[in-house]
C-alpha cells in the first residue's frame, strides 16, 4: 500500500539563467588560496560601511527584498513546468534522503529524474505539457508508480510516503548515500546503521561512540565527553538538534550522548569547510536530525545494560498525521560498577526526550524538548572537590512549507538552549557557568533555472553568567548578554554535467560587541565521469565565532567549560578552512576516500602559562595552524562491512604572553596543544550471520601532548616579610616549556555479538560484548601533584537486553 499524500496544483514557473562572479586568488606556499587576506579585506571594510547596526538591518532588509524581487520576476516570466515534492516514510513521515524520482513522458520523449535532498525534497523542471509515468523508489521501500498529466498547471506538488518493503533484500548493493568513506559533497552522512555497527556497552549504538571511529575526531577517552575535530576544540563545534543548537550533548561516559541510535534519523557531519547555512562556530558541524514517532501505531522498547537503562515509546496522536516519540535513559554504572570493576565509578548521566511531529498536505512541523544531566568524578578515588556536573535543556520547533506558488521550500526554526556547568565541591562548586541561547531562523530554498538558492536570516540572543573564582583572572565572574542577527546565501550552480559550485556568504551582526563581519565560503564538487563513483570535492571559507568556551588548557579530560563573549573586546575567533578531497568507488561496495585540509586560526583564547597550576590563570590570545589528512577505506556488501580509517593531524598554536619573555627569554612560544593527536587509526568489521551480528572495532591514537615538569617547591611571597617558621608557602610546579611531552599511545579493541529473538510480545535483542578486549591500560590522565595515573576502562565484559514491543 502506497500512500499518495497530496498532489497540489498551483501556478508558478521558473527559469532564468544564473550568473557567476569569479575572482582570482593567489596561492600561498602550501598551495592553498590565501583567503586569510579576505579576513583583512572584509572585516574593516564592512566595519566602516555598517558601523551603525541600523545600517546592517537596512542591508539585510534590502537583501531580502532583492531576493524576493528576483524570484518574483523569475516566477512571472518562466514558461516551463515543474514537479516538486517531499518523499517520506509511511510509518513516521520522516523525509527520505536519496530517494529516486524518475519521470518518463508518455506523450513525448522526455525522460528526467532527480534524487531527494536531506529534507526529502525533489524537484524536476523544464517539462512540457503531457502525460508522464512517474516512479519514486528507495532501497528497502515499495516503489511508488503513477501516471500524471501536466498541462493545466505550471507547478505540480507531489508528496509521497513510501512503505517499507517486506521482501528480504537479496544481494543488494546498498545505494544509500552515507558510510564512513562516502562523502556527499564533502559532507559525511551518518545513518542509524552506522551507529549500530559500533560495539557499544548498551542496547544499541550511539553517536558519541561512532564519532570516535572517525579519523577527523579526537576524543579525550572514555570519560569526559569532549571531542576535538581537526585541531578545533569542543567549544568550536556546532551541534544542532533538529536545527536547535545544543551546548553539551555528550555524556560524561564517552560511549554515550543524547543521540542513541533509536532516536536519530540521520546526522550530517561537517569536519570542515561547511557551507554558509551554518555559522557561529569555527571548527565543525554536527547536524542531527531526530527521528519522528510512528504515526500509524503505538510501539516502544525497554533496554538495560550495566552502563544504562531506559525506555522509548512512540505512536500516533492523530493517526497518519501527528505522532510523538519519547525516551528516558538513565545511567546504571554507578550502581553496577562495584560488581564488575575494581572501583566504583562515580559517574551519573541521563537524558529525557520528547518530540511531536505533524505532517500536513504541504507543511511538516515538529517540536522537541530534551534534558540531559551529567555528574561525576573523573578520578574515582578522589572525594571532595573534584566533581563535575552539567545539565542541558532545550526545546525547539521547526516547520517546513512547500509554497503553492513557486518551487522551493520555506523553513522556520526557533528554539531555546540552556547549559549549566559546575566544577569543584558538590555542595558549593568552585566554578559555575551557565549559557543560554534563543534563536529564530528563516531558511528559504528557491530556484532560478537549475541554480538552487538556499538563503535565510537568523536572530540570536545569548546570555551568559559565570563565576570562575580565580581560575581565569580576565574573566572571574560576570553576567552578559549578546544579541546578533544576520543572513546567509548559498547557491548550488551546476556547471555542465560534472561540476557543481556552491558559493556562499554569511553576514553576521553583533551590535555593540563586534564589528559586522562577512564570511565568504566556497565549495565545489567535480564528478569526472558524471557519476558519484568518483568525486573531487574542495572547499574554502572563512568562519567566525562570537562566543568562546574556555576550559582548562592543561587537561583534555577536564569537562568544565565556561561560555562567554570573548573578553578581548572585538576580537572574534576566526578560522580559515581549505579542504580538498577525492573519493572513489572501486567495484561493488568498495569505497576509498582521501581528504586533506589546512586551517588557519586566529584570536583563540588560551590560558596563560603559570607555574601555580591550581590557582590563577589568565587568558590570552593565540593563533593557530592546522593541517592533516584523512584516508578511509570501506567495504560494504551483503552482510559484511569493513572499514579502516587513518587520520593524520598537525596542530600548532602561537601565543605571545608577557611572562614568556620573563620565563623563556622569548616573547612568542609555539606549541602543540593538548588535542594534537598526530596519528589515528580505526578499524571496524561487522558481520551478520543469520540472526547473529558480530562487530569488532579497534582504535589507535598516538599520544597527546602534555607539559613536563622539572620538580616542585614551595613559593613564598616575601612582599610582607612573612615568618617562614609559620608560613609554609604555596606549592609550585616548575614547568618545562608547554606541551613538549607526549602521553603514551591509546589503543583498544571492542567486540560485540548481537542476537535477535522473536517473542510473542515483540523482539528481544541480546548483546554480549567486551570493551578493551586485551585489557590495555590506556592513560586517562596523570596527576603530577599526586603522581597518580588514572586509566580508562579496563577489560570489561557486558550483556545488554532490549525488548521491542510489537
Amino acid at each position, binding site marked *: 500500500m502506497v500512500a499518495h499524500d497530496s498532489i497540489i496544483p498551483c501556478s508558478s514557473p521558473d527559469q532564468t539563467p544564473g550568473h557567476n562572479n569569479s575572482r582570482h586568488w593567489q596561492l600561498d606556499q602550501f598551495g592553498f588560496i590565501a583567503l586569510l587576506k579576505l579576513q583583512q579585506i572584509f572585516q574593516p571594510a564592512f566595519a566602516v560601511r555598517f558601523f551603525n547596526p541600523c545600517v546592517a538591518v537596512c542591508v539585510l532588509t534590502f537583501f531580502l527584498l532583492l531576493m524576493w524581487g528576483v524570484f518574483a520576476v523569475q516566477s512571472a516570466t518562466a514558461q516551463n513546468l515543474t514537479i516538486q515534492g517531499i518523499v517520506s516514510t509511511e510509518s513516521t513521515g520522516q523525509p527520505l534522503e536519496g530517494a529516486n524520482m524518475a519521470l518518463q513522458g508518455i506523450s513525448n520523449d522526455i525522460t528526467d529524474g532527480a534524487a531527494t535532498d536531506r529534507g526529502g525534497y525533489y524537484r524536476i523542471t523544464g517539462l512540457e505539457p503531457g502525460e508522464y509515468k512517474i516512479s519514486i523508489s528507495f532501497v528497502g521501500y515499495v516503489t511508488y508508480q503513477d501516471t500524471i498529466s501536466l498541462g493545466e498547471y505550471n507547478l505540480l506538488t507531489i508528496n509521497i510516503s513510501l512503505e517499507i518493503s517486506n521482501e528480504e533484500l537479496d544481494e543488494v548493493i546498498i545505494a544509500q548515500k552515507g558510510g564512513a568513506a562516502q562523502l556527499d559533497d564533502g559532507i559525511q552522512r551518518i545513518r542509524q546503521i552506522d551507529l549500530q555497527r559500533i560495539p557499544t556497552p548498551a542496547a544499541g549504538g550511539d553517536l558519541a561512540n561512532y564519532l570516535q571511529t572517525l579519523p577527523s575526531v579526537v576524543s579525550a577517552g572514555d570519560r569526559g565527553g569532549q571531542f576535538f575535530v581537526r585541531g578545533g576544540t569542543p567549544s568550536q563545534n556546532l551541534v544542532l538538534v533538529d536545527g536547535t543548537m545544543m551546548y553539551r550533548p555528550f555524556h560524561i561516559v564517552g560511549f554515550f550522548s543524547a543521540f542513541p541510535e533509536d532516536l536519530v534519523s540521520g546526522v550530517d557531519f561537517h569536519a570542515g569547510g561547511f557551507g554558509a547555512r551554518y555559522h557561529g562556530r569555527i571548527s565543525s558541524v554536527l547536524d542531527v536530525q531526530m527521528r519522528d514517532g510512528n504515526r500509524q501505531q503505538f510501539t516502544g522498547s525497554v533496554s538495560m545494560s550495566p552502563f544504562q537503562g531506559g525506555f522509548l515509546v512512540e505512536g500516533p496522536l492523530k493517526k497518519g498525521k501527528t505522532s510523538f516519540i519519547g525516551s528516558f535513559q538513565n545511567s546504571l554504572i554507578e550502581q553496577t560498577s562495584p560488581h564488575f570493576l575494581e572501583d566504583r565509578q562515580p559517574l551519573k548521566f541521563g537524558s529525557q526526550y520528547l518530540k511531536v511531529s505533524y505532517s500536513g498536505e504541504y507543511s511538516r512541523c515538529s517540536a522537541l524538548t530534551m534534558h540531559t544531566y551529567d555528574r561525576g568524578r573523573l578520578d574515582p578515588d578522589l572525594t571532595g572537590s573534584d566533581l563535575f556536573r552539567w545539565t542541558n535543556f532545550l526545546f525547539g520547533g521547526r516547520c517546513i512549507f512547500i509554497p503553492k506558488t513557486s518551487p522551493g521550500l520555506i523553513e522556520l526554526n526557533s528554539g531555546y538552549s540552556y547549559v549549566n556547568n559546575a566544577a569543584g565541591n558538590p555542595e558549593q562548586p568552585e566554578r559555575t557557568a551557565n549559557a543560554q541561547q534563543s534563536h529564530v531562523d528563516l531558511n528559504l530554498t528557491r530556484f532560478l533555472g537549475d541554480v538552487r538558492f538556499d538563503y535565510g536570516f537568523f536572530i540570536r540572543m545569548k546570555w551568559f553568567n559565570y563565576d570562575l573564582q580565580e581560575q581565569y*583572572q580576565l574573566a572571574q565572574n560576570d553576567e552578559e548578554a549578546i544579541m546578533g542577527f544576520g543572513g546567509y546565501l548559498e547557491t548550488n550552480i551546476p556547471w555542465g554535467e560534472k561540476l557543481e559550485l556552491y558559493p556562499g556568504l554569511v553576514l553576521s551582526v553583533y551590535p555593540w560587541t563586534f564589528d559586522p563581519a562577512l564570511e565568504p565560503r566556497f565549495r565545489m564538487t567535480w564528478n569526472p565521469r558524471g557519476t558519484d563513483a568518483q568525486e573531487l570535492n574542495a572547499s574554502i571559507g572563512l568562519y567566525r565565532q562570537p562566543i568562546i568556551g574556555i576550559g582548562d588548557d592543561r587537561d583534555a579530560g577536564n569537562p568544565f567549560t565556561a561560555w562567554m563573549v570573548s573578553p578581548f573586546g572585538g576580537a572574534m575567533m576566526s578560522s580559515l578552512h581549505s579542504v580538498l578531497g577525492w573519493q572513489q568507488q572501486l567495484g561493488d561496495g568498495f569505497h576509498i576516500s582521501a581528504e586533506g585540509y589546512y586551517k588557519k586560526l586566529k584570536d583563540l583564547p588560551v590560558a*596563560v602559562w*603559570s*607555574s*601555580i597550576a591550581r590557582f*590563577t*590563570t589568565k587568558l590570552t590570545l593565540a593563533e593557530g595552524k592546522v593541517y592533516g589528512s584523512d584516508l578511509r577505506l570501506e567495504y560494504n556488501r*551483503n*552482510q*559484511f562491512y569493513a572499514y579502516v580509517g587513518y587520520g593524520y593531524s598537525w596542530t600548532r598554536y602561537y601565543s605571545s604572553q*608577557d*611572562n614568556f619573555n*620573563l*620565563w623563556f627569554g622569548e616573547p612568542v612560544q609555539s606549541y602543540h596543544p593538548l588535542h594534537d593527536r598526530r596519528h589515528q587509526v580505526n*578499524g571496524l*568489521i561487522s*558481520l*551478520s*550471520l543469520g540472526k547473529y551480528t558480530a562487530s*569488532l572495532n*579497534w582504535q*589507535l591514537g598516538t599520544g597527546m601532548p602534555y607539559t*613536563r*615538569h*622539572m*620538580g*616542585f*617547591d*614551595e613559593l*613564598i*611571597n*616575601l*612582599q*610582607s*616579610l612573612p*615568618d*617562614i617558621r609559620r608560613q*609554609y*608557602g604555596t*606549592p*609550585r610546579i*616548575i614547568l618545562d616549556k608547554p606541551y613538549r*611531552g607526549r*602521553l*603514551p*599511545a591509546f*589503543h583498544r*579493541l571492542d567486540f560485540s555479538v548481537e542476537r535477535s529473538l522473536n517473542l510473542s510480545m515483540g523482539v528481544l535483542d541480546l548483546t554480549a560484548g567486551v570493551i578493551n*578486549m*586485551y*585489557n*590495555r*591500560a*590506556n*592513560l586517562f590522565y*596523570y596527576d603530577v*601533584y*599526586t*603522581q597518580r*595515573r588514572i586509566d580508562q576502562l579496563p577489560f570489561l565484559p557486558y550483556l545488554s537486553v532490549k525488548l521491542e514491543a510489537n
Partner: protein
Amino acid sequence: MTMFPMNNRLGPWLLILLSLSLGLASCDNTIDPLQENDRYVFSIYGFLDVSVDTQWVRVMPIRDSLYLAPRPIDATVTLEHVGGGQPVTLEDSLFRYGMQAYAYNFWTDLEMIPGDTYRLEAMRSDGEYSSVMFTFPVDFPEPDVRILEHDVVDQIYIFGVQTLALVEVIYEVIDPSEPESEPRDRLAVSQIENAEGITNGFVVTVNPDEDALKLRLRVSNSSVRFKPVQVRVAAAGSDWPDFLNLEDEDLALPDVVSNVENGLGFVAPVMTKTAPYE
C-alpha cells in the same frame, strides 16, 4: 538468503587482528612526566634582618613530588661574611605544616652588620649547590610619625632609606566588652602603596579611618575599634623586587623573583625599625 561467501576467509584475518592487538597490548604505556632538572638544586627563601639576633632561612631541595614523608635533607647551609672571615654553618630544623607538608628551616645567631655583604650557600653531598650573595641596607633612623590633629590623615617620615620593603601600621583591636587588662589582638595594615619618595627617604600617608574599614573585614566582631599603636618599617637591599607591579603569575615564574644562583627563591636582606604611633 544467500550466505556471505567470505565467511571461511574471515577467520585468519580475525586471528591476525587479535594477534596484532595482543602484541600491541604489551606496548609501553608508561609515562615519565619529569623533565630532567639540571638547573635548580635548592629553593631558598627568607629574609635576614640585621636588627634581630637570630636569622631563619628556608632551604628545600627541588623534588619530584609535592607530598612526601619527611626525610633527612642532603644539604649543608653556610653563611659567609664576604671579606670578613670563615663561613658559619646554619643549624637545620624540621617544621611541619599540617598533615602532609613539611619544610627545613635553617638558623644562625651570627651577628649581621648593616651595609655588609654576605654569601649564603646550600650544598648537596655530591657538590651541587645553590647560593645567593646579598648586601644589607645601611642603618637608618627610627621612623618619624606625625599625627596631624586637624586632618584625617597622618604622616610617617622615613629618612636614610634607599629601598623601602615594608611599612605597616600595627593596630590594636579594642573590644569594649572585654576588660582593659586583657591582652589585645594586633593587626597590621600595609602602607607601602601610600609611600612617596622624597629627598633621602620616604613620606607615607596613613588614613586610620580607611584602615579601620579594611580591618573590619578581617574581624568577626562588629563592635570593636582599632587603635594605631606602632609603625614597622623595613629597608631592603637594592635588588628588592618591585612587588607592586608584579602579578601573581609573574611572581610564580621560576626566575622572575629570584636572586639564587643554581636554584630558586629569594633571600632578602633587610633592616627593620619600629616606632610608637604617637
